[in-house]
């Protein structure tokens, strides 16, 4: 894969960024009779890669959907860059969302658009200041960063699962987000492609100076990307710490994950 092309992140905004870019306190959410998250708290610090591990159905995806208010919690606060997203109006929420990059589990590329149009779509709406030429350059650069510069005019259906994930990552970072949210970035991929995606996550963090929240149940992805790990179990924090804390843990549940 090609080395990341040089570009300048949004320096001004980065300086203003608070220490805790995401702060979740006492978050509870459930669907009908099922409690998914129960009094859950989390802090994502500026510039770190935080991995949230957990079994399928433990509420990981629900958690990051609450951060961008795709889901409204039953109780608790979700602060992004110091502002409570649940208290925001539509315009303020749109402004906050511009600073967040969200990589969906399925990639969520727009089927009816070419790869170029997929990348231009958020760019046209978030970076209205850019000229046509600058926009083209950014799109090409973002695709080059994920090693798929030659797919510009292809349709998403013409790409493999791994390529779609990489294009989706390019679409997410093309708007220079401050916070990256990854929903199961390596699910459904072969080990080699999974490693490539993990490598890309680290490169994105270094290049764009982003703070990342990575939701996964893939231990290899967690090992490759985590600065800090939170283990979720039954909608609550089971264990929080560095990778070594988890690997040394004698707990049966943790061991079953890290064996």
């Amino acid at each position, binding site marked *: 894969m090609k080395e990341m092309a040089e570009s300048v992140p949004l320096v001004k905004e980065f300086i203003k960024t608070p220490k805790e870019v995401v702060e979740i306190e006492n978050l509870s959410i459930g669907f009908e009779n099922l409690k998914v998250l129960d009094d859950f708290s989390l802090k994502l610090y500026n510039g770190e890669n935080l991995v949230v591990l957990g079994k399928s159905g433990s509420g990981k995806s629900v958690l990051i*959907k609450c951060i*961008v208010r*795709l889901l409204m919690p039953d109780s608790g606060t979700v602060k992004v860059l110091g502002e409570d997203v649940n208290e925001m109006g539509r315009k303020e929420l*749109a*402004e906050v*969302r*511009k600073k*967040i990059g*969200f990589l*969906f*589990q*399925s990639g*969520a*590329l*727009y*089927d*009816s658009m070419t790869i170029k149009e997929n990348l231009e*779509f*958020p760019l046209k*709406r*978030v970076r209205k200041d850019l000229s046509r030429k600058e926009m083209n350059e950014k799109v090409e650069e973002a695709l080059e960063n994920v090693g798929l510069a030659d797919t510009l005019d292809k349709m998403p259906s013409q790409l493999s699962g791994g390529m779609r994930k990489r294009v989706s990552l390019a679409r997410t970072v093309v*708007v220079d987000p401050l916070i990256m949210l990854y929903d199961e970035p390596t699910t459904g991929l072969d080990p080699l492609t999974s490693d490539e995606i993990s490598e890309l996550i680290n490169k994105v963090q270094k290049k764009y100076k982003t703070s990342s929240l990575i939701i996964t149940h893939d231990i290899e992805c967690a090992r490759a990307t985590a600065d800090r790990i939170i283990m979720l179990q039954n909608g609550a924090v089971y264990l929080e710490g560095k990778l070594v804390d988890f690997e040394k843990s004698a707990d049966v549940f943790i061991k079953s994950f890290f064996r």
Partner: protein
Amino acid sequence: MVKIIGPVLRKIPKNRDVKKQAEKLGERTFEQTRIANVFFSDIADFFLFLWRTTREAFSRDFEFKEFFRQCYLIGYKTLPLISITGLIIGLVLTIQLRPALADFGAVSMLPGMVALSIIREMGPVITALICAGKIGSGMGAELGSMRVTEQIDAMEVSSTNPIRFLVVTRVLAATLMIPILVLYADALGILGSWAGANIKGDVTFVLFFSQAFSVIDFLDLFPAVIKTFFFGAAIGFVGCYKGYTAGRGTESVGKAANSAVVLSSLLVIIIDLVAVQITDML
């Protein structure tokens, strides 16, 4: 006395049966309440969605490119289907009417009768029903699969208003293109009728059309065109609503497409009934 009261007493349930029956009644009441709750929240969702769509339709950032793309997809891509349908309607009506009119020696009224029935009723309703099948189901399936594959969520997260981008453009495109398709189908229907009239007769193109248009006036055409705007809006809106509010599984895509067709076809018929009543009053 005992003979009379005995059977009545036997019919009164014992304590245990009363408890069971009360439980059953409670469960049934609970289930009925739940169904009523779902029904009323669906209606509320429908009107909330209608309100959001209407509000976004008047917003400043209109998605012109997507609107024109939808006009192309709805209008141009439906042309072949509408062409065939229009021609056949005219042809069949003429073939069916001709013998009946011939019995009364009124074959000369054929062009006018066919043109009137096509323009006032057959053209708009049949074209709208065909569009409900093609466009309504297409919108339901497309937006439904976008919901399932998180594309709508991705749009929302990238600070794009999906209602404005996906729904408003489609509803407006359908509202604008369906009347055009109806007029086109009407024209082809009359053309088909001329072809039908020539199967067993010999009528010139000019004579047929001059006879056809001699019986049509403004009050025949105007209400018929106006109602097609409502047909278009209903088809577009129902298709989008069903797709946009589809559930999370792949099964819901099929359900969304199916219910979009059923509901939009039903709405076309209801709107037509209302339009006929209003036209009748004029």
